[in-house]
């Protein structure tokens, strides 16, 4: 950026989301800051737009490239307020050496997945590393199952739920949570998953102490650092009995928005325009290991995602569920609920009832 526009000097600062909220709320926002797609968290696009904190970027050329499937989480009232260069995938990151040594095959149905669990367990290697002590990790299993169990049958589930005619409790979410618990009871996971966090989960799969771990594609480079000699791959986690049902959660990653109160509005908007150039997008995707938000030019797609690309090309993908939820309460009820489900403190019905109650808060 500095090379292209020498008069602009970009200063970076690193902090957590809470400190960004404080800076915005106290009237001292950074010119550019991290924004999450859709709704459902304090720094999500919808919450920030409702508070008048994001500058309108709709007149920039990249906005026309946003596909209709991503409009619900990248636009509000048909206006764009932030830009993200990549999309992240949730899938099973697996250790190819262990996979081959146990003669396993990529599962396409739930029963094949159970066979994989049983074969691995018999060999003394749990199929999946689960770091559910970090609640954001615990949620990824049902996030991976729900597209196949909910959206393959009811593609407009989000609209129906927003209209009040569908609920978590009466949908495939129940099957997803029950299957999650079934995986635990069947021995698909490492011992003590609730006492295990992300760091241990990464180490378990990288060092071959488990076959796989359900994770975000953007964290694969981090997992690889635990064992640079491991060959990692990724497959879609099947939830249904038909291979045709299989869908993958793919969604825009967090991106960058411009503060509506910025004193350097012109320069900040220039920065977004620079980030949205195809060369910048491709470079960012290559470095992060995620999928570019718009395709074009020459981009080296992360080979790890080769097992996921057919689903993306066939449109068998769904956005991350929380990006359509109306408030942060649903996500928190979900995060805590998954831990309660795994520890036996709650059933799938209890968890979904709390999520439905939280959804009603709007």
């Amino acid at each position, binding site marked *: 950026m500095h090379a292209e526009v020498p008069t602009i000097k970009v200063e970076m600062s690193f902090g957590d989301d*809470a400190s960004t*909220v404080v800076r915005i709320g106290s009237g001292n926002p950074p010119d550019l800051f991290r924004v999450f797609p859709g709704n459902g968290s304090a720094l999500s696009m919808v*919450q*920030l737009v409702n508070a*008048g904190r994001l500058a309108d970027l709709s007149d920039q050329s990249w906005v026309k490239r946003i596909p209709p499937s991503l409009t619900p989480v990248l636009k509000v009232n048909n206006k764009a307020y932030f830009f993200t260069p990549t999309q992240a995938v949730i899938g099973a990151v697996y250790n190819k050496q262990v996979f081959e040594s146990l003669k396993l095959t990529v599962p396409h149905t739930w029963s094949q997945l159970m066979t994989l669990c049983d074969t691995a367990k018999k060999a003394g290697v749990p199929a999946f590393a689960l770091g559910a002590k970090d*609640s954001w990790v615990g949620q990824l299993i049902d996030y991976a199952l729900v597209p196949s169990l909910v959206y393959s049958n009811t593609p407009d589930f989000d609209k129906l739920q927003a209209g009040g005619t569908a609920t978590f409790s009466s949908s495939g979410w129940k099957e997803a949570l029950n299957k999650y618990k079934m995986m635990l009871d069947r021995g698909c996971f490492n011992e003590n998953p*609730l006492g295990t*966090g992300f760091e241990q989960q990464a180490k378990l799969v990288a060092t071959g102490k488990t076959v796989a771990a359900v994770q975000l594609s953007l964290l694969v480079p981090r997992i690889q650092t635990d064992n640079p000699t491991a060959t990692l791959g990724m497959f879609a986690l099947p939830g249904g009995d038909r291979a045709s049902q299989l869908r993958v959660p793919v969604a825009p990653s967090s991106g960058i928005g411009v503060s509506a109160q910025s004193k350097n509005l012109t320069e900040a908007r220039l920065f977004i325009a620079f980030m949205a150039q195809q060369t910048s997008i491709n470079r960012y995707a290559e470095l992060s290991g995620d999928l570019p938000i718009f395709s074009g030019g020459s981009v080296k797609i992360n080979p790890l995602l080769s097992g996921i690309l057919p689903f993306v090309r066939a449109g068998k993908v769904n956005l991350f569920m929380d990006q359509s939820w109306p408030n942060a*309460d649903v996500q928190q009820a979900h995060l805590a609920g998954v831990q309660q489900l795994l520890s036996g403190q709650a059933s799938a019905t209890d968890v979904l009832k709390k999520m439905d109650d939280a959804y009603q808060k709007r």
Partner: protein
Amino acid sequence: MSDLPHPKVAMQSTRILKKRRVAGVPWYFLAPALLAYILVVVYPIVAGGSYAFTDWNGLNPVKTFVGLENFRRLLQDDQALSSLKNTVLITLSVTLVQNTLGLLLALGANSTIRTRFLLRTVLFAPAVISSLVAAYLWQYLYDPNVEGGINALLTDVGLKSLRQDWLGNPQLALFAITGTVVWQYTGYSMVIFLAGLQGVPVELYEAAELDGAGAWQSFWNVTRPMIAPAITVNLMLSVIGGFKLFDQILAMTGGGPGYATSTLSLLMYKQAFVFSRFGYSTATALVLAIIIAGVSLLQLKLLRSQELEG
């Protein structure tokens, strides 16, 4: 001799001089400190406290007055009530264990053993570590997958059956956090008890011994009343510390599994920065402050009466 003023007159004039001196101190000498105090302490408390009566979400410049709505919701919030229960439980367990151990260690470190100075330093050392660092350290020790953690130690000493998922078991997690807090701050309590113990005159123990008092009687009738102020300080500090415990919980469990280790301080943080409910979060903070103040005053009254009896 006759030139000297009468002693009574001299005393009176000294008093007048003192009075004049006191009366002569200009009030505005206080102004800089008072201004700083108002700006740094009073204003933020009042301004912050006022958010408790609004629906402010932390981002929106508009804050709507909602009266006591946030407090009404707090009383009906299951998560808040469960967090309050956890807060009380962790406060009681930390206070009890930390002070009992602190007192025992102080009695040991107050003896004449040769290594007492080294022991005092070693035992106090954890208190100077940042609570976050201590939490991450213990998170590692509690990790069931780590080969050098508590579970590995239990296996090595033949107690494999006692291995636990320390932070993953909802029945154990709160007590595992208590263990970390106690490990870190027992040395702190010990130092305060030690200061009290060193002020007890040896003659009192000699007199008690002459009267035929045993070790327990000597402790109960001599040591305890004499270190009563140290007991008051320690109990007050650990109760207040227990009520506002936050760092260790955020780092070790984030309030989980589920809500098993969620406390009012953590709930306050989440309400503000995760749920974007700064008004509700401030209402929780006000209630917590009132609880701490109430418990502290009650405790001070009870403990001070013990000191007088002693």
